């Protein structure tokens, strides 16, 4: 029997298209228009061609923000992924404590970004914050508003605190899907704990870990609120990541042209990563036959 092809359902997508046009497409077009012009306000524009793109590509400031961003994302991944897997391996498999652990792990994920920032901003303060006060009393020179290392460590530990749970929960879901028969076979073969991890658990977690890595990478690459609340990008520029720098440029200095060029290049990088993310995920699904 021939299938009837009816494409009328596409009309149901129209409201979404209109919404996306107003919330994303039209603003993006405006950014493209801004990126090739210069303005001093009053809606008066002068043609600048590709000058802003050239300026941004030669800008020390953008490259160093990109460098900091890359280092930040790299450190985040190197800590959160192994730590998340370790946590997932330790979590109880069934019973009351399994549910309890799941709820506890999910808690940090429910807290809004700016609240997380505020929590750590206060927690790290030398005068009233528990962490800052204790470290200071121990004679450790910790002050995230002045010290480069203190600022970086605070921002990184904050992100680890906030997002390791996500990796752990994903890895836990991967672990739960392994049938008992695999473990029994490993036991019969007298496999070591490491061998069980290396040849059973890790391969079975591969798919979810891939998702976890890509999610964490994208999220950390676009991070804004938490470091902005805690350090404001300082001391100096030491924790000024890409989006913080972008906001400073666009809203702080009102350099619309350069900021537009910057954000378009930033957008392209994110688009590329998202595409890789999407492609890898759909191909993994196809391979696993899900």
């Amino acid at each position: 029997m021939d299938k009837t092809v009816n494409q009328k359902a596409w009309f149901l997508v129209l409201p979404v298209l209109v919404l996306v046009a107003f919330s994303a497409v039209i603003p993006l077009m405006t950014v493209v228009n801004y990126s090739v012009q210069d303005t001093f306000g009053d809606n008066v524009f002068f043609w600048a061609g590709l000058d802003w793109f050239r300026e941004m590509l030669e800008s020390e400031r953008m490259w160093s923000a990109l460098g900091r961003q890359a280092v930040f994302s790299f450190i985040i991944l190197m800590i959160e992924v192994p730590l998340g897997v370790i946590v997932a391996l330790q979590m109880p498999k069934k019973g009351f404590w399994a549910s309890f652990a799941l709820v506890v792990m999910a808690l940090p994920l429910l807290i809004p970004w700016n609240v997380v920032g505020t929590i750590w901003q206060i927690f790290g303060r030398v005068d009233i914050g528990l962490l800052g006060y204790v470290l200071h009393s121990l004679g450790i020179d910790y002050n995230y508003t002045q010290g480069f290392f203190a600022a970086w460590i605070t921002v990184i530990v904050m992100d680890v605190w906030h997002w390791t749970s996500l990796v752990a929960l994903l890895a836990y879901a991967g672990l739960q899907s392994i049938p008992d028969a695999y473990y029994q076979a490993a036991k019969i073969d007298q496999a070591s704990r490491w061998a069980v991890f290396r040849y059973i658990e890790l391969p079975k977690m591969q798919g979810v870990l891939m998702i976890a890595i890509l999610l964490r990478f994208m999220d950390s690459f676009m991070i804004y609120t938490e470091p902005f609340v805690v350090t404001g990008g300082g001391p100096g520029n030491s924790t000024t990541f890409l989006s913080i720098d972008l906001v400073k440029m666009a809203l702080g200095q009102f350099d619309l042209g350069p900021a537009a060029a910057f954000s378009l290049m930033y957008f392209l990088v994110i688009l590329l990563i998202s595409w890789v993310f999407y492609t890898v995920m759909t191909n993994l699904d196809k391979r696993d036959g899900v």
Partner: protein
Amino acid sequence: MEWMAWTWPTALFFIVIASLLVVFTVLGIRYPETPRTGILRIETTRGDRLFITLLGSAFINIAWLGLVGTNQAFALIVCLIYALAVFRWV
């Protein structure tokens, strides 16, 4: 529309992209296709290849601007070669 600060070159840029989308939609309706697997070892349709072409072209243009800096039009020729390669092999 005043606030969007339109210029002819940017309008042309979007008209080209919009017409590409329309052409590919019409092609998709007139000549339905099955996805194929190319050198990237991922399944791609015409639309996917158009996306890869456009995204790659943006990076080619930026790279040209950063590394060569003059005669931006030549970057478009590179993009065209890239587009042909994508549609042939990816």
